[in-house]
């Protein structure tokens, strides 16, 4: 079974963790996420203009780019991660321009070579699928699409057509790392998604604490935590691995006890 699908067939809901590539000691931080119990790793590709991100991830992008992080560096990080952690699924998340600048086929081939399992592209909606979708699908890389509070029943089939891996439910209409959605609205949305697809549903945006993660784990197949981890990297710089591992472990423990 592919790495990404198996992450969602375990006894407990999956913990999906995000950090920005090139921010802090990324290789050590990725190891720490795995050590803390992350089931899926999302590695953010920094971009100069991260329109969907709040201040925490914007600043992580700026820090990373200021250090000169290139696309080649990101794929080198992914390649090294894959060699060290052969079973942990790795997803690249980012914006259209860095992913498509050398063509979708080039990007998909790089993903395959580096052992990347899936791609989340914030600003390539289904309407612009030819930009990236066909290349990823023919390379066997999952294209993980986003569903949002504005995705009504009529819209969902368009989003799901061509999606694979899992569905990322963006629980708030807004940017990353801000307010959390009401639990009831998340439950309703996951229920609607479950009717429309058999793909696992992971819920993110505004999920920061073990308590919030546990509440989402009661209804969803996966919980995505990003800004809270990126803030730890901001706080601890090149020494963030320990704090990251501990925080991820606390999230994982909360998720594992959620359906007890």
């Amino acid at each position: 079974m592919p790495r990404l699908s198996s992450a969602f067939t375990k006894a407990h809901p999956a913990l999906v963790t995000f950090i920005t590539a090139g921010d802090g000691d990324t290789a050590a931080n990725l190891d720490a996420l795995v050590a803390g119990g992350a089931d899926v790793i999302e590695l953010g590709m920094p971009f100069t203009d991260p329109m969907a991100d709040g201040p925490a991830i914007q600043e992580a992008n700026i820090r990373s780019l200021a250090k000169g992080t290139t696309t080649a560096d990101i794929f080198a990080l992914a390649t090294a991660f894959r060699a060290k952690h052969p079973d942990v699924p790795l997803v690249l998340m980012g914006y259209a321009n860095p992913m498509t600048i050398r063509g979708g086929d080039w990007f998909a081939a790089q993903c395959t070579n580096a052992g990347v399992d899936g791609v989340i592209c914030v600003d390539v909606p289904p309407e612009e699928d030819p930009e990236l979708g066909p290349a990823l699908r023919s390379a066997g890389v999952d294209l993980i699409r986003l569903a949002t509070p504005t995705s009504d029943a009529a819209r969902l089939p368009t989003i799901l057509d061509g999606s694979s891996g899992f569905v990322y439910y963006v629980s708030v209409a807004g940017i990353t790392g801000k307010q959390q959605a009401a639990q009831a609205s998340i439950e309703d949305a996951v229920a609607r998604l479950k009717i429309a697809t058999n793909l696992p549903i992971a819920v993110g945006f505004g999920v920061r604490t073990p308590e919030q993660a546990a509440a989402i784990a009661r209804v969803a197949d996966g919980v995505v935590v990003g800004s809270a981890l990126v803030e730890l990297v901001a706080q601890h710089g090149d020494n963030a691995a320990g704090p990251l591992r501990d925080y991820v472990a606390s999230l994982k423990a909360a998720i594992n006890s959620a359906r007890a």
Partner: protein
Amino acid sequence: MTTAELTPNSFRNQPDERGHFGQFGGRYVAETLMPLVLDLEREYRAAQADPAFQAQFDDLLEHYVGRPSPLYYAERLTEECRKDAPAGKGAQIWFKRDELNHTGAHKINNCIGQILLAMRMGKTRIIAETGAGQHGVATATVCARFGLPCFIYMGAKDISRQQPNVFRMRLLGAEVIPVTSGAGTLKDAMNEGLRDWVANVHDTFYIIGTAAGPHPYPELVRDFQSVIGKEARAQMLSRINRLPDLLVAAIGGGSNAIGLFHPFLDDADVEMLGIEAAGHGLDKEHAASLAGGRPGILHGNKTYLLQDEDGQIDEAHSISAGLDYPGIGPEHSWLKEIGRVRYDSVTDKEALDAFQLLCRTEGIIPALEPAHAIAAVAREAVKMDRDQIILANLCGRGDKDIFTVAEALGTVI
């Protein structure tokens, strides 16, 4: 008939049904925004088919904006350029006087159209980004006119160099929100506008100021601004019974240029020249996306962008805050690729010289944006015959720029 007939091979039947101008344009937005962008397109199609919408738009342009704007023969500028021209050369220079519009620039044309759309859609809160502040002032103006709350995102650097416009926006009741991310200019203001929009989709309408962004914005902004070219074409025919030989307009995002050019695109004998900002020079910091960039995806559309080999967006530079943007509207990228419009650039220094030239020869203080076009007009006029005609868009007046110009000229005011 105000424009040439639309034919199957027309240059005026873009974009396609997916919002693409050739390979450019499109709808590259976060999923949260997609339903809204699709709604906007539906509502725009309904508005286009609604004579009442068009009638209200026309009425406001006439009685509130002050259209039609005059078409003016710049006799002394023409003579001044002829002094440096070879014998028999020195084209006649005409201006479309969109700087005489209410609020002092062409931006108001588009804002009138978009706020009418916003109200049709039942939106109750307006946001916009601004560079030079002209679009911010125009947006704040229509919000005051229709009683809607208005929030303007403006780069911190632009706020400091465009203080008069910041004060105007505040007088008009708008909240001006400084943007400190990135270089604190138009690109960063647009990022913040998009962040606000995605968080307030239920009640907020984003009035984009240029012919860029996700489809249908490039199309609808062009359509609202096309009043410039439609009027100019009819005025030329009625005044001198012929069309101009060359159209010239400055380009940041390109809304004044596409507004002038579009109604003439199928007039095969009319050449067109779009002028980008070359800043300190094309080999240094500049804002000329077509001259120095390549196709990429930013702010909802695919278009020429200033960027590095990894697709990271470069900072633009121009003395004109309104041209200080690393991208360009997608229809211009397409018109460049098919060769229908020629694009060239003008440096900060050339624009400053042209600014002063127009002040002295015609008694018109232009904005720094059209000053770029005027520099190109002077350059082109000496190469053209005396009976040929250049029509340039004087898209904004320069009151807002006198402090910037004074500083550049080393004058304390």
